[in-house]
């Protein structure tokens, strides 16, 4: 917590915000009661700040583009296929891969809260958690996509997937043209987070 050393009282420190104090209170009580281990809390923060993120999902997509057998396994059982690359854990227990095709675009939302496939995409961006996106993605997916700069011809069907606490979706974008010469690492670099949520085309 940052402290301003120019503005302080000799006898004490300015307290953090009310919400920070509430969290500190909750954490200290739960630790004291032996309900959570502080080392485990640190490990969780470390993992989400540095280890999981959309680069994981990008590797899954790149492998699906380059390896037809892997793509088929991803279709049959996305959770297992993703685990092959070492991406497992909370909020990735039941993954479904949805493939964009020339006639079909997939868009993922969580209308009720912010369910999101953590092991492959990390934590969701702010807009994904916001009421406008959560409410409008289902009602007006074309309008939402247009706001992301994606204008789809009317003949392309849009399928919206509403995530739940149980099932999480990963969009497999179409492989960009003229990428035949690229290896998996180079392909993965083309895959964006928004592409895997469905709010971008590659």
């Amino acid at each position: 917590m940052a402290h301003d050393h120019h503005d302080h009282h000799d006898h004490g420190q300015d307290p953090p915000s009310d919400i920070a104090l509430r969290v500190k209170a909750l954490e200290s009580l739960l630790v004291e009661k032996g309900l959570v281990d502080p080392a485990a809390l640190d490990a969780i923060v470390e993992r989400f700040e540095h280890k999981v993120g959309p680069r994981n999902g990008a590797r899954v997509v790149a492998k699906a583009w380059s390896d037809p057998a892997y793509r088929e396994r991803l279709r049959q059982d996305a959770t297992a296929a993703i685990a092959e690359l070492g991406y497992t854990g909370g909020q990735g227990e039941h993954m479904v891969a949805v493939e964009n095709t020339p006639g079909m675009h997939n868009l993922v939302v969580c209308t009720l809260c912010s369910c999101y496939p953590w092991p492959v995409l990390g934590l969701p961006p702010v807009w994904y958690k916001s009421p406008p996106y959560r409410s409008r993605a289902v009602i007006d997916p074309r309008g939402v996509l247009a706001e992301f700069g994606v204008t789809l011809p009317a003949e392309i069907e849009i399928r919206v997937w509403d995530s739940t606490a149980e099932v999480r979706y990963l969009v497999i974008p179409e492989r960009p043209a003229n990428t035949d010469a690229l290896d998996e690492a180079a392909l993965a670099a083309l895959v964006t987070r928004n592409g895997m949520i469905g709010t971008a085309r590659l």
Partner: protein
Amino acid sequence: MSAPDAGALPGNLLQSLPRDADGPVFAEPWQAQAFALTVQLHAEGAFTWAEWADALSRELASDPEDDGGRYYHHWVAALEQLAAARRLTGPAELADRTAAWAEAYAHTPHGRPVELLELSPAPHPRLRPAT
């Protein structure tokens, strides 16, 4: 975040949707703490993820005007409620402890780690230093 995502959102989107192209995962440390507490309590079996999603959904539904900026405030409120429902802690105990922390900050000289003092009437006297 890699280059392709940076600044990817167009200007008109900002009118209705907040953006965060490549900011930090957590805006403030308390958000990370609240997140980690939830994940760990779930891992310890204190509640199922469906129960958590339900609690968070209810909180979020109470604030449809939020632009996403109060998301973690709602997260904390949902966690407090679920913790109370599971009898892990409760509103009175939380209020006492929050006050004790505020007091500890006020009485700790600058540069020293803030620790709970033995002066609060908290029902759990076994106080540990802050980590």
